C-alpha cells in the first residue's frame, strides 16, 4: 500500500512508523521539519515539509497514486479539509481524518467521510477499563432547542 500521513505529531509518527514496519510505502508531511524526529529509528519512508491542504505539496507527495491518506494534524478542520481534497480532488480510495471533537466527527461521518474520533475512542477505552457500558454518541442538533 502507498500511504500519505499528514501531520507528524505523536499519532502521525506512530501510524507512519507502524505502516512502514508492515512493509507499506509511506510519505509523511509536516509543516515543521523537527517533527520528523518522532518517527521510529527504522522508518524507511519519505518525509516532506509542507502544509496539509497545499495541493502542490500533496502532488509532490504522490497523492495521485496513493491508496490511502491519513490526516493526523493538530487541527480537526485541517484534517477534514485534507481528506475531502484527497477523496474529491485526487480520488484517493481511503482518506481518514483524526477528529478530536466528537460532534464534528459524527457529523462528517454522516457526510460520508471516514474519521477517527479520538476523544470518543479514549473515553470509551476508559469506560471499558472501568467496566462501564460505552456511552451512546449524541451528535445531532435538537431542532428548536
Amino acid at each position, binding site marked *: 500500500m502507498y500511504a500519505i500521513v499528514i501531520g507528524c505529531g505523536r499519532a502521525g509518527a506512530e501510524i507512519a512508523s507502524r505502516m512502514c514496519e508492515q512493509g507499506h510505502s509511506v510519505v509523511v508531511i509536516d509543516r515543521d521539519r523537527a517533527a520528523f524526529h518522532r518517527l521510529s529509528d527504522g522508518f524507511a519512508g519519505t518525509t516532506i515539509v509542507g502544509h496539509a*491542504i497545499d*495541493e502542490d505539496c500533496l502532488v509532490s507527495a504522490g497523492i495521485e497514486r496513493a491508496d490511502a491518506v491519513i490526516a493526523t494534524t493538530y*487541527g*480537526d*478542520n*485541517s484534517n*477534514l*479539509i485534507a481528506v*475531502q*481534497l484527497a477523496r*474529491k*480532488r485526487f480520488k484517493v480510495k481511503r482518506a481518514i481524518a483524526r477528529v478530536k*471533537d*466528537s*460532534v*464534528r466527527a459524527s*457529523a*462528517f461521518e*454522516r*457526510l460520508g467521510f471516514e474519521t477517527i474520533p479520538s476523544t470518543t475512542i479514549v473515553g470509551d477505552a476508559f469506560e471499558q477499563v472501568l467496566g462501564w457500558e460505552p456511552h451512546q454518541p449524541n*451528535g*445531532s*442538533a*435538537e*431542532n*428548536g*432547542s
Partner: protein
Amino acid sequence: MFVIIAGGGKVGGQLARDLMAERHEVVVMESNPGKARALQDEIGDAVVPHDASEGRWLIDAGIGRADLLIAVTGDDEDNIVICQLGEALSEGRARTITRINNPKNSDTFRTLGIEAIVNATDLVMTMIERDVSVAPVVHLMRLRSAGLELVEMTVAEGSAADGSTPEELRLPEQGGRISVILRNGEAVLPSPTTRLHAGDSVVLVAQTEFEEALGRQFAAPTIV
C-alpha cells in the same frame, strides 16, 4: 430570520450590527476572549465566546433552528468546516455562506464543490462594502461547473418583479435563488415573501438556461 455569525472580527461585527438593526435575531460566535468581550460590551448576550467549529457550541448557539449561518473567521479551513458542520447539524435547514480570506485557496475550495457559496459571498460582501452601481444585468461570475450564473439584476419600474415576492415570481421553479437584495445601499436578506421594489438590486444565482427568462421579469415592459 435567525442568523448565526461565526467570527466576531470586523466583518462579523458589522454584519451583526446591520442584521440586528433590521430586527433579525443574531448570535455571534467568537473564540478569542478579548474580541468576544469587546463585542459583548456592545451587543450583549448575542455573543457566544466559543469556536463555532466545535460542534457542541454550534448546537448550543441554536444551529438546529438557524435560518442562516455566515462564516467569516480569519481562517479559510475553519470557515469551510463551520459551514459544512452547520449544514450537517441543521440537517440541511440552515443556508450557509462564507468568504475566502486567501484567494490562493479558491481552487481548493472549488474542488470541494463549494464554489458558488464561497465566491458569491465574497462578491456580495465586496458589493455591500462599496457603493453598488446600478446596471440592468451584471454578470458577477460564471459558475461553469455547476451550470449556474451569479447575476445582479435591477428591478425596473413596471416590471413583473416590481411589487412581487420571489414566491410570486416562481423564481425557485425557474432555477433562480436570490442571495441578497441591495436596497438604498443596504443589504436585505430575502425570504420567499419579501416584496421587491423598483430600484432594488437583486443578486441571484440562476441556472444558465433560465437566465434570459429571469431577466425579462426584471426588465421594464416594452410598449408594442
